[in-house]
C-alpha cells in the first residue's frame, strides 16, 4: 500500500497537470458552446502554440510564461481568420462536412509542422525547468505549478470577459438564441469568429504552458485533441467550469490509477471514467441537460 506522502505527491501532480489540460479543453468547450462546431484541429492548434514557444525560446531566449499573452494573441488571430474565412461557410452544412473540414485542417497543420520542424521532440529548458519546491512532505514541480496558476488566471479572465463585458454578453446571447441575436442586429458572423479566436487563444496560452511540461512533436496533436474531448465530455460540453473540472478529474484519475494499479494503464482509467459519465450523466458532470 503506498504511503500517504506518496499518494499526496502523486495527487498534487495530477491536479496541476489537469489544470493545464483543463485550460486546453476550455478552448474547445468555448467554441462548441457558442459556434456549435466541434474543433477537430484543437490539439494541432495547440502544437502550433507549442512550436511558437519553442521557436521564440530558441531564437531569443524568451520564457514561454512571459510569451503566453503574445502567443495567445497570435492564436486568437489564427482562430479568427480560420472561422471567418474557412469555417463560417460550413456552419449551415451537415456536421460530417464540418468534421471533414477540421480533420483536413488538422492533417495539414501536422504535416506543415513536420516539414518545418522535423520529427524530433523539441523542448524548452528554462532556468526553472528542473526546479521543484519542498512544501512539507510534498515535492511540487515548479513548471507544473507555474503553468497551473497561469491556467487558473486565464480561465478567470475568460470568465470575467464573458460575464461582464458587452462583447462577452453578446457572444453569450448568440449561444443562447441564434435567431434572437440576428433579430436584435448582432453581427453573428463576427461574434462567431471572435469566439473561435478566443477559444484558439485559450489553446495558445495552454500550449505556451504545456511546452514547459511536455516536449513538442508534430504528431502530438491528435493525442491532445482526444484528451481535450475526453475532458470536455467528462466535464460537460459547452461548460467552462466543466472543462477545468474535467481536466482536474482526468489528471487526478490518471495519476492515482498509475499509482494504485499500473502506470501503463493510466489511459484505460481515464477512458473508463468517460464511459461512466456517458452512461450515467451524458451531459457531463456540470453540463446542462439538453431539453
Amino acid at each position, binding site marked *: 500500500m503506498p504511503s500517504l506522502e506518496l499518494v499526496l505527491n502523486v495527487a498534487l501532480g495530477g491536479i496541476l497537470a489537469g489544470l493545464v489540460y483543463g485550460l486546453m479543453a476550455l478552448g474547445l468547450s468555448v467554441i462548441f458552446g457558442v459556434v456549435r462546431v466541434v474543433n477537430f484541429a484543437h490539439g494541432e492548434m495547440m502544437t502550433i502554440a507549442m512550436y511558437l514557444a519553442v521557436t521564440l525560446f530558441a531564437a531569443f531566449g524568451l520564457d514561454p510564461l512571459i510569451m503566453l499573452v503574445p502567443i495567445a494573441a497570435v492564436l486568437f488571430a489564427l482562430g479568427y481568420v480560420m472561422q471567418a474565412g474557412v469555417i463560417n461557410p460550413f456552419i449551415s452544412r451537415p456536421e460530417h462536412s464540418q468534421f471533414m473540414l477540421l480533420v483536413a485542417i488538422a492533417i495539414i497543420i501536422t504535416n506543415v509542422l513536420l516539414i518545418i520542424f522535423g520529427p524530433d521532440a523539441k523542448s524548452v529548458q528554462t532556468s526553472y525547468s528542473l526546479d521543484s519546491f519542498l512544501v512539507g512532505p510534498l515535492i511540487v514541480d515548479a513548471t507544473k505549478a507555474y503553468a497551473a496558476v497561469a491556467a487558473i488566471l486565464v480561465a478567470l479572465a475568460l470568465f470575467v470577459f464573458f460575464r461582464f463585458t458587452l462583447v462577452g454578453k453578446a457572444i453569450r446571447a448568440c449561444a443562447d438564441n441564434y435567431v434572437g441575436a440576428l433579430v436584435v442586429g448582432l453581427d453573428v458572423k463576427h461574434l462567431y469568429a471572435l469566439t473561435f479566436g478566443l477559444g484558439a487563444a485559450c489553446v495558445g496560452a495552454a500550449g505556451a504552458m504545456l511546452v514547459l511540461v511536455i516536449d513538442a512533436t508534430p*504528431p502530438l496533436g491528435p493525442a491532445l485533441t482526444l484528451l481535450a474531448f475526453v475532458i470536455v465530455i467528462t466535464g460537460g460540453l459547452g461548460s467552462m467550469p466543466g472543462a477545468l473540472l474535467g481536466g482536474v478529474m482526468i489528471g487526478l484519475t490518471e495519476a492515482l490509477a498509475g499509482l494504485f494499479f499500473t502506470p501503463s494503464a493510466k489511459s484505460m482509467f481515464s477512458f473508463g471514467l468517460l464511459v461512466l459519465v456517458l452512461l450515467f450523466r451524458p451531459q457531463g458532470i456540470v453540463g446542462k441537460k439538453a431539453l
Partner: protein
Amino acid sequence: MIRKSPTNPARAGVTRRSFAAGAGAAGLLAGTAPFNIVRAQGGPLKIGVILPLSGVQAGIGQSCKRGADIAPALFKQIGYTQPIEIVVVDFETNVDTARARAERLIADGCNMLSGPFDSGAASAIAQVAEQKGVPFVINIAAAPQITEQGYKFVFRNFQTAPQIISRGLALFTDIFAATGKTPSTAVLMHINDTFGQANKAAIDRIFPTMNLPFKIVESIAYDPAAKDLSVEVAKAKATNADILMTVTRLNDAIILVREMVKQRWEPMGIISPGSPGMYEQQFLDTMGKYGDYVITTVPWANPKAEMTKLVSDEFKKLYPRDKLPGHIFNIGFTFEALMVCADAHKRAGSTNGTALADAVRTTKIEKRVMVGGPIEFDAKGQCNTIASVCLQNRNQTPTVVLPKDAAEMTPVFPMPSWNQRG
C-alpha cells in the same frame, strides 16, 4: 503489322515486309528475354532500408539513417564496388506502416531489406520478407522470437534480448568490483512495448541465474508514448531502491531522468542492461550535466577497429557538426547490416532472393565496426559474436569504462548527486 490491301481497302493483309519485321522483332525479344533475366539477377543491388524517421522513435531512426548515408562511399573504400542502390523509407514508428513499407519496397524492386530498429516492426517486416523470398538483414531489434520462427530469409546482426541482458548483467558485477560499492536493491522501470517486454522477460528469466549481489524489489512498466513519468518515478522513488535499472528508448529516457531531477531522487546509480536512449546524442544534448554518470551495458563500436576509423572519417565528412559517439551505436549496426547485404551480393553475383539468402548464411566478415568476433550467422540467422561493453556518460560523451582493456576512463559509482555537478 497489318495494313489495308491497296486493291481492296476493306481487306486487311500481312505483307512480306511486315511479316519479316514482326518475326525479327519477335526473335529479338525471344533472344534478349533470357539476358533480361540474367541482367536482373546479376544487376545492381537495390536495398530497402526501413527506419522510424518520424514518430516516437524518430530521433533514433534519424541516427540510424546516417549509417545508411555513409554506406555508399564506404563500400567503395572497402572493395564493394558493384552498383548498389540504397532506398531509405520511414515507417513512422508504426508496425502496420512498417509492414506496408516492406511490401511496397519489394514491389518497387528491392532485392534486400534492412532496418528497422524496433522489434515489433522487425517481426512484421520479417513476415513479409519470408513470404516474398527477399532477404531481410536486421540492424537493431532484440526480441528473440524474430529468429526463432524458422525463417530462411531473415538475419539479425544484433544481440537478442537474452544476450543483451545476460552479457549486460555480467558487467554489473564488474562495475561494483571496480568501484568497491555494491547496491543491495534495485527497481526496474521498463517501457511497455515489444522490446521492453522482451527485455523484462529476459531479466525475469536470467537475473535469478546470475547470482548478482542485489535483488529487484519492483518492476514498473510505462506507456511507450508517455509524455509524463511523474507517477512512475514517484512510485520507483518510494521503493527506496539503491539503483534504478532501466529499459528505455530515447524520449522516455529523457523524460525519466528529467523527472528524477525534479523529484530529487538520487539513487546510487542509473544502470541500463542494454537498452538505447541514454547514450543517444539527443539525450546527451538535452540532459547536459544531468545525463552524466548514467551507465549502459551495451554492444558498442570498437574504438581500435580499422572499420570504426573509416566510419568516423566518412561521418565527419557528411555530418561535420554532429558528434559521432552519440550516434555510433545506431550508425555502426546499420552500416554493418548494409555491409552484410553488399558482401552477400558480391559473393552471390546475383540479385536472386534465394542466392542472396544463401550467401548471407555463409557470411564471414572479419573487419567490422562493433566489438566482437566476425559477423557470421547460425542456422537460425542469428549473429552470436557481438560483445557488450560498459558505457558511462562522462562530460556528455558516452565513454567505455569497462572492460579494462577497452576502457577510456574508470567507472564512477555511486553517481554524484544532482546538485554536485558543475
